[in-house]
């Protein structure tokens, strides 16, 4: 049975799940939830995701929301198929989880409001908070120095192989790299090297094509 993903293919959190499904070669079907018309806040969708956000999945009788929980579920369920996203030992898995958690607490917390102000607000005709953008850039620079240092001695965030730790960053990074502040990544040699390598992966290229980017 094919996994049904409720969401919009251009949105970062659904992309996190789609990228995982593509890396794991799992078949899926996208049921479009239109964010521009706030379809995610309507009662029908709130039954799938009580916080009124995308994505949510249905896999037969099994239902799940929170993109990172969904990605981990499929990475675990299909551990023997496609890319191994969760590490080869318990200890390696813990390092993968560590850097995936860093994405939540240090990276997304800054990149999300940056993308909101630089990409989404202009699209909706709202005013961008320029002072906030400046403040966030400074903070993000400090965080990316740590990432750059990690990537100086590691090919990927959690070691020598591409894992969930890298994957989970990619959708929001994709948005960041399409803004005019992308030098914040490009000027950091190891981060730039890492980003070019992860975006050369076939799964990412397929996702970008699906999203029309």
């Amino acid at each position: 049975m094919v996994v049904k993903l409720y969401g919009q293919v251009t949105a970062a959190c659904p992309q996190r799940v789609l990228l995982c499904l593509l890396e794991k070669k799992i078949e899926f079907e996208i049921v479009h939830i239109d964010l521009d018309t706030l379809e995610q806040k309507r009662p029908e969708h709130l039954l799938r995701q009580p916080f009124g956000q995308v994505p949510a999945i249905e896999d037969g009788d099994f239902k799940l929301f929170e993109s990172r929980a969904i990605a981990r579920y499929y990475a675990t369920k299909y551990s023997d198929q496609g890319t191994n996203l969760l590490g080869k030992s318990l200890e390696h898995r813990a390092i993968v989880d560590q850097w995936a958690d860093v994405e939540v607490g240090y990276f997304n917390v800054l990149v999300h409001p940056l993308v909101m102000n630089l990409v989404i607000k202009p699209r909706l005709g709202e005013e961008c908070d320029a002072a906030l953008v400046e403040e966030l850039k400074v903070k993000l620079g400090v965080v990316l120095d740590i990432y750059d240092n990690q990537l100086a001695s590691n090919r990927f965030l959690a070691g020598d192989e591409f894992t969930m730790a890298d994957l989970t960053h990619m959708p929001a990074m994709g948005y960041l790299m399409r803004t005019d502040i992308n030098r914040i990544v490009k000027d950091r040699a190891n981060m730039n090297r890492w980003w070019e390598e992860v975006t050369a992966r076939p799964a990412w290229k397929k996702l970008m094509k699906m999203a029309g980017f």
Partner: protein
Amino acid sequence: MVMKVYGDGMSACVARVLLCLHEKETEFELVPVDLFACHHKLPSFLSMNPFGQVPVLQDEDLTLFESRAITAYIAEKHKDKGTDLTRHADAKEAAIVKLWSEVESHHFNPAISAVIHHLIVVPLQGKTPDAAIVEENLEKLGKVLDVYEEKLGKTKYLAGDSYTLADLHHVPYTYYFMKTGHAGLVNDRPNVKAWWEDLCSRPAFLKVSPGLTVAPATN
């Protein structure tokens, strides 16, 4: 060799790890890190966690930071003893535990930690809390607790009928929150209140809560 946790029991994120260790009946050594003297920003500490925060776990040659990655590691390593914190035997139940752990991380934690920061940490730094930020985050927290109230009307704990990491991760910040003047947000929601009282009755909680000693400013 016994696992080492670097940190101080008063830190909510350290307490999160300590709760997990007690639930899993795992011995550990707590290595004090003087947060008020900023020892967590010294190069010797940054070599363990480049983000300069507690907790850090050392288990033989593994060094780990991020409290929720640490709890996941401990729960998996010791999955055959103590409380079953991850429902590991069933992939779907395990996924639901992860789902509600993500909810804590993305929906609950940003709101509650902002309130705790302004009502407890900021006064300790001799500054004035930003009332607007507190109000805004109390409102966000209320909406999250509305979702919890409904969920906890259907299941005893967030991810089902047994206590898991999804519940545990909430405990330290909620403990501090209940000492502020806004405990009504929990107490006025009967299912959330009952759930919270249950979490506070657990032996692991009774061992860790005495360490949660930071007091809020009266407001």
